[in-house]
């Protein structure tokens, strides 16, 4: 039966459908509802465990540790909390623990505008922790898709043995839409990591070789381990080349928008072509190159000052134009006028 479901509810239900049995979190707008739902679920389902941690650092560490212990686990936060989780994110990649980090973005930096939506944590997906790691990140744009992508993210996490990031924004988190989540059919991947208590393994954030032996002075062992990791992550990412593409009337201009922005610019579909990446990271290089090729003008519309635009520029080796929707100001009219301005005289 269809009923009104919010983005955060869909995220939580998606995790439950994927088999999640552990949640750790810390209250933060606009992701607190997920913590509340987890608390309620832990009350009625003894198989579901939840921890309201003392900070996001603890929440993220608990999520990863629970995954090592044998539970499908996830955490939910917003930008400032995600900053605190960066340390754990790097550790999660080092110990290869499948779990989900959900980040509902709000205007930053720091506390910023706690109730206003933004899309400004893209660089935090990849750049926040020390060293090289290759996270996979998805960004839905509707309540139903939030549900489906959450399951996809859990599957990708199990396959890549790493924390996978699901992004949303304050608007999407609190967006209510009609959806019938029970009717959505999904495929759920089984656990791939043997739980603790089954061997003599060492899960360490210190550099180690494939067998888990600490190797702090061995470039070759490190290289082997990191290349393995990279290859595995990129292979899994290739399994999910998710995007949407709507060709429009204007043969010259392509708009790139994702998440809630893609919903806001949807009325421009008649005129412009629109490309919506759903897998935000690793950047859809092949797909972007193919799609953008016939267009003279590429305009990236996003809730930050050009974070995805810079990735897109790298991917297609061309200049793109930017329409940064800053400070939570996502107004179609304003976006439209900005596009006109960019296209004037071209």
């Amino acid at each position, binding site marked *: 039966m269809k009923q009104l479901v919010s983005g955060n509810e869909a995220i939580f239900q998606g995790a439950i459908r994927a088999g999640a049995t552990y949640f750790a979190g810390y209250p933060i707008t606009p992701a607190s509802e997920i913590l509340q739902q987890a608390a309620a679920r832990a009350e009625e389902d003894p198989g579901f465990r939840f*921890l309201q941690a003392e900070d996001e650092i603890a929440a993220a560490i608990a999520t990863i540790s629970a995954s090592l212990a044998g539970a499908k686990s996830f955490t939910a936060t917003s930008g400032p909390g995600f900053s605190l989780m960066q340390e754990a994110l790097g550790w999660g990649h080092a110990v290869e623990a499948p779990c989900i980090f959900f980040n509902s973005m709000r205007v930053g930096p720091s506390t910023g505008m706690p109730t206003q939506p933004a899309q400004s944590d893209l660089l935090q997906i990849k750049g926040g922790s020390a060293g090289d790691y290759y996270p996979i990140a998805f960004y839905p744009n509707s309540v139903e898709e939030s549900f489906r992508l959450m399951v996809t993210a859990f599957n990708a996490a199990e396959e890549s043995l790493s924390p996978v990031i699901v992004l949303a924004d304050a608007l999407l988190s609190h967006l209510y839409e009609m959806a019938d989540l029970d009717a959505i059919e999904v495929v759920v991947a089984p656990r791939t990591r043997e739980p603790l208590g089954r061997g003599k393994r060492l899960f360490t954030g210190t550099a180690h070789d494939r067998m888990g032996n600490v190797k702090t002075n061995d470039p070759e062992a490190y290289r082997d381990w990191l290349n393995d990791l990279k290859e595995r992550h990129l292979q899994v990412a290739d399994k999910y080349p998710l995007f949407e593409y709507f060709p429009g009337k204007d043969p010259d201009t392509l708009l790139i928008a994702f998440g809630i922005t893609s919903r806001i610019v949807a009325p421009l579909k008649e005129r412009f072509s629109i490309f919506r990446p759903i897998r935000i990271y690793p950047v859809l290089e092949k797909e972007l190159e193919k799609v953008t090729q016939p267009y003279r003008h590429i305009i990236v519309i996003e809730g930050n000052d050009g974070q995805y635009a810079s990735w897109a520029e790298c991917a297609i080796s061309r200049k793109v134009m930017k329409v940064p929707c800053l400070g939570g100001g996502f107004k179609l009219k304003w976006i439209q006028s900005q596009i006109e301005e960019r296209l004037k005289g071209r």
Partner: protein
Amino acid sequence: MIDRSYKELLKLKRFPHTWCPGCGIGAVLKNVAISLRELGWNDRNTTVVSGIGCSGRMAGYMNLDAVHTPHGRALTAAEAIKTVRPDLNVVVLSGDGDLGAIGGNHLLHTSRRNPNITVFCNDNEIYGLTGGQAGPTTPKGTKTITSPRGEIFQPLRLGRILTTQAPYFYARTTVYHLNHFKACIREALFWKGFSFVDIISDCIELNGRRLGFKTAHQMFKWFDERFHIVEGVRDHLKDDELGIAKREVEAEVKAEMEVEKEPKVLIEGLKLFTLEELKHFDGTDGKPIYIGYKGKVYDISTSPLFQGEKRMRCHIAGKDLTRDIEIAPHGEDLVYHFPMVGKLKVKAEAEK
């Protein structure tokens, strides 16, 4: 004859271990392994978790599934593992800097939540791995490379922090008092709940030498001078005592003086309000704001919520709030701050 089967719990192929000659961490590792072995804990039912630092390397030498967390996060990781897998025995092996400084917040909150885990803290009063900087437990006046004139602050007293709220288990011992050390380990492993063993240990290379000791044994003798063992179970340990402080339930708190909540009626013959009449006093046109509560009427116009230009939308004015306040987060004492101006006529009474 001595039982040496504890060696099965150690990754001997990785020996000699990484610590300096005479370091106390080796003794902690060995004695924990001996105790685990005595209890029959093995790789099927036990997990060790450690943080970062010299002592954080202990987990890697245990022949068990081990988790080596980022700096300071061992307790959280251990708690999460215990939550998900109550069948596993979870042991934390870490150091004072890891647990007390960078992980201080987790120490406070994990101990408050009281998961059934055991923590062995190698307390060497210094940051050894990074070269001998002053740590959270470095005694006042100690010269280190970051306190060249002597540490100026009082040390963090783990024993006092951890014994503020029952249930708690805190033991202090040293690597020198071996029998006491082993007894503490065993007691801690048996304790149902969060148990913490503060093991005073020696860092001879990076702390001891600066203090004027030549060998680990001289530091041991110094521990013997500084501390003495106290027998029996205590509620708290003094700073120079070695022993066990534990308590299962909070001591009875003396019943506080019953605070008189009901305000005294100051005016005899209070005005009687019906619900209809009460509705008029909603703050509009300069009228006062009245609310009804438990048969009385209160004037809440002075509440800070209703002052100034942007005053709170007054949806509660002129209503009987008895039921609302019962379920509201702020209690009735909030209402009693305001002057009582009359009695409320309830329906039954009005009909009479």
